[in-house]
């Protein structure tokens, strides 16, 4: 059974990764690149106080890389790494959905995969975005670890909460599920130091919508494709 699950997760992950990379190429990616233009302009505007003199050497000290770490060159290389990351994401999400479906029991089909995928999107896309909305590069934000911890905690609480609401018949456990899903938002996400951004507000709004659509596609497509593939594989090996 595990072998069929892993095989299906990889198969679905390949499909999802390719489709999502194509979707992102036309939706989120142009916005990210635009956001980075504003981000760089903002950094450059904040710089001159330190590096006033040397008119003739302008441009030499312009490049501001964080920690001088390697990063893929813009263009093909950058897109290629994004494709790989999307493939891994597709496999990861498919494996998690199939894992939950297997542990829960019942048939594993495209339709049920889709339903679990949509639930996954609620838990790991929609509900966390209420506290930490998807950010363009150049968004002011709280320290990264605190945001990651809040995001993961919220996704986990939302997933367990949704499970309790949808899968348990008892009213008190449904109520506990709702409370669990609400709890992270009562605690509150780490606050950004400022609400100002280098880019125009409309650009940020467009990106939030595009990002949520991308997440919804990732989870629902991964669920449907992996459920369908698992059904085919499990059928063949009996």
């Amino acid at each position, binding site marked *: 059974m595990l072998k069929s*699950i892993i095989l299906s997760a990889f198969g679905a992950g390949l499909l999802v990764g390719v489709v999502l990379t194509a979707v*992102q190429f036309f939706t989120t990616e142009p916005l990210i690149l635009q956001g980075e233009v504003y981000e760089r302009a903002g950094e450059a505007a904040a710089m001159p106080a330190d590096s006033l003199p040397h008119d003739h050497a302008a441009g030499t000290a312009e490049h501001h890389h964080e920690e001088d770490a*390697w990063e893929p060159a813009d263009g093909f290389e950058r897109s290629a790494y*994004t494709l790989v990351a999307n493939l891994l994401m597709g496999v990861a999400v498919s*494996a*998690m959905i199939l894992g939950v479906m297997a542990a829960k029991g019942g048939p594993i089909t495209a339709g049920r995969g889709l339903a679990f995928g949509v639930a996954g999107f609620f838990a790991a896309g929609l509900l966390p975005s209420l506290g930490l909305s998807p950010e363009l590069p150049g968004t002011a934000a709280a320290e990264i670890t605190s945001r990651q911890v809040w995001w993961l905690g919220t996704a986990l609480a939302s997933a367990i909460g949704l499970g309790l609401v949808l899968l348990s018949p008892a009213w008190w456990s449904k109520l506990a599920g709702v409370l669990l899903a609400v709890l992270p938002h009562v605690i509150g996400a780490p606050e950004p130091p400022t609400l100002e951004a280098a880019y125009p507000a409309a650009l940020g709004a467009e990106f939030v919508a*595009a*990002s949520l659509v991308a997440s919804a596609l990732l989870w629902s497509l991964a669920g449907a494709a992996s459920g369908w593939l698992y059904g085919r594989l499990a*059928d063949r090996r009996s």
Partner: protein
Amino acid sequence: MAASTLSPALRPGSSAPAHSTRIIAGAVALAFGLCLFLATGFAAPSLIHNATHDTRHAFGLPCH
């Protein structure tokens, strides 16, 4: 809508997996998926961060 068609994958008697097989396989798959998800979407080393940068932003994961 999801459960309207009965799966041909779950034929009675033949390959319906035992309860424990199901739970263990599900838990292993979930753990595998979670590790991969964390490595792709959350790992801190800047090498991994920079390679997965656009994917993290696109799916609304905390970045930078």
